[in-house]
């Protein structure tokens, strides 16, 4: 369908199709497929070990799939030119070496993708780390590391954000701030894909939900579609993932 293909090539459109990943004989991802669209916040939900990180790592070109494709604006991540200007991402904390300062970390990232040096200070400012710019990352708390990771993701003013458990380690104020930031990104036409193992965590921010359990996608839809018929969000989550049969009414 030509119209569909044109849509898949939209900048910032994230398309995951039939992904398979095996570690030895264990199947980690079993034909995983979904999309995250511009202007929407898509929450990727699942218990720890369900396959969220594996999917995001393949999307970002870090790991190789055993089958299927993951595309950013119609292209594999590894073929993007200056990828930080298209997709900002955060996996497992800041990704900064502990001996380096926050400013130095962002400075080399900016240089590698032809991003203006002035963005380093702006991004640190944006995540509330301006006063810690010269502190070595080894002395950061978990929450500060998350903020630095987010600064790295925002550095190239990308069309899409891909964030693995972004509110981990943030205090309530930080969580509120993060939600505002993600909503603003989507409101400006950006694509936001974030993973979480807590449905309540994403209920206030997500437009679309993708639920994964045991390496398979078990549900996709809007927040309203997936939670209809349940008293509480967590009940819906456990019912969908089969994590707790008793939670289903």
């Amino acid at each position, binding site marked *: 369908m030509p119209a569909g293909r044109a849509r898949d090539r939209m900048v910032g459109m994230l398309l995951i199709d039939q992904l398979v990943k095996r570690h030895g004989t264990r199947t980690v991802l079993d034909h995983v497929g979904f999309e995250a669209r511009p202007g929407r916040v898509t929450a990727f939900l699942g218990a720890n070990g369900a396959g969220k990180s594996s999917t995001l*790592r393949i999307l*970002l*070109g*870090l*790991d*190789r799939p055993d089958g299927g494709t993951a595309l950013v604006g119609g292209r594999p*991540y*590894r073929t*993007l*030119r*200056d*990828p*930080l200007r298209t*997709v900002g*991402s955060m*996996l*497992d*904390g*800041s*990704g*900064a*070496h*502990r*001996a*380096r*300062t926050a400013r*130095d*970390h962002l*400075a*080399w*990232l900016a*240089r*590698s*993708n*032809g991003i203006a040096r002035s963005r380093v200070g702006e991004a640190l400012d944006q995540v509330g780390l301006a006063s810690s710019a010269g502190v070595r*990352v*080894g002395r*950061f*708390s*978990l929450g500060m*590391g*998350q903020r630095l*990771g987010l600064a*790295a993701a925002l550095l190239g003013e990308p069309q899409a954000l891909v964030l693995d458990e972004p509110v*981990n*380690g943030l205090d309530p104020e930080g969580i509120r701030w993060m939600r505002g930031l993600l909503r603003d990104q989507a409101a400006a036409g950006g694509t936001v894909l974030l993973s979480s193992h807590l449905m309540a965590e994403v209920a206030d921010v997500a437009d679309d939900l993708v639920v994964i359990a045991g390496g398979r996608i078990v549900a996709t839809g809007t927040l309203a579609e997936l939670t209809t018929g349940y008293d509480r969000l967590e009940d819906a989550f456990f019912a969908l993932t089969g994590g707790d049969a008793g939670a289903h009414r």
Partner: protein
Amino acid sequence: MRVAGPLVAELRKTLTLPAAWAGIAVVVLGSIAITVLNAVTTRSAIDAGTPERVANTSAFEAAFAAMPLGTVGAVVLGVVMISSEYAANSTDAGGGRQITATLTAMPRRVSLLAAKATVLVVLVIAVAAITLPITAGIATAVIGGAGTETVTPAQALMRGLGGALYWTLTGLIATAVTLLTRSGLIAPIVLIANSSVVSVSLLLTNLTPLAHWLPDLAGRRLFTGVDTVDGGLAAGPGALVMAGWTVLLLAVAAVVFRRRDA
């Protein structure tokens, strides 16, 4: 621009790593210390009227004797450029590794490795270009006209270049081995211990002459004038064999790096 970006990024990354500066300091300061020690020993032997106590009274030889130390610094640089990518942050800080940030910023892995190798070569040559003139100058200042210079400027240049080439190739081998093993331990243990504590390669030559074709032994005559065992390859062919090993190990590392999960 697309080549310069990663290259400058990797250079900046290395120069903001304290461990890299430790490696550079070992070479520059360590070489200066050894040179001062040698030159003072030589000078006092001359002044005491017993120059036969030292092997020779050449200022260049007094400085060049520190040259093997540069190998240690090159290995440290080659290792930390890679091992810093795989060092995990504390779990308190999310437990992430820098390789994630590096590969999301520069997903073309072979180009990334080429940028890292280029940075290593540039740094090692820069360190050699600083260390050799400084140590030669110090030795000349201490020994002065009292000694007999047996090395011509042309010979000094060739030996300096040979030594710097050995440093560079050893550093690149350290990079390749560290990338293959993703460990900052194996390459320094093998390369530093083998060159300074007990040379396993040298012991192997007692078992088979093929051991002369191992990278460290093949290239050892690049340090002309440093005492070494007889036999094995001459400087030119030896350098080619060592360079061949380096290219081979880097190529294997590139193929593995490109295919494996980050």
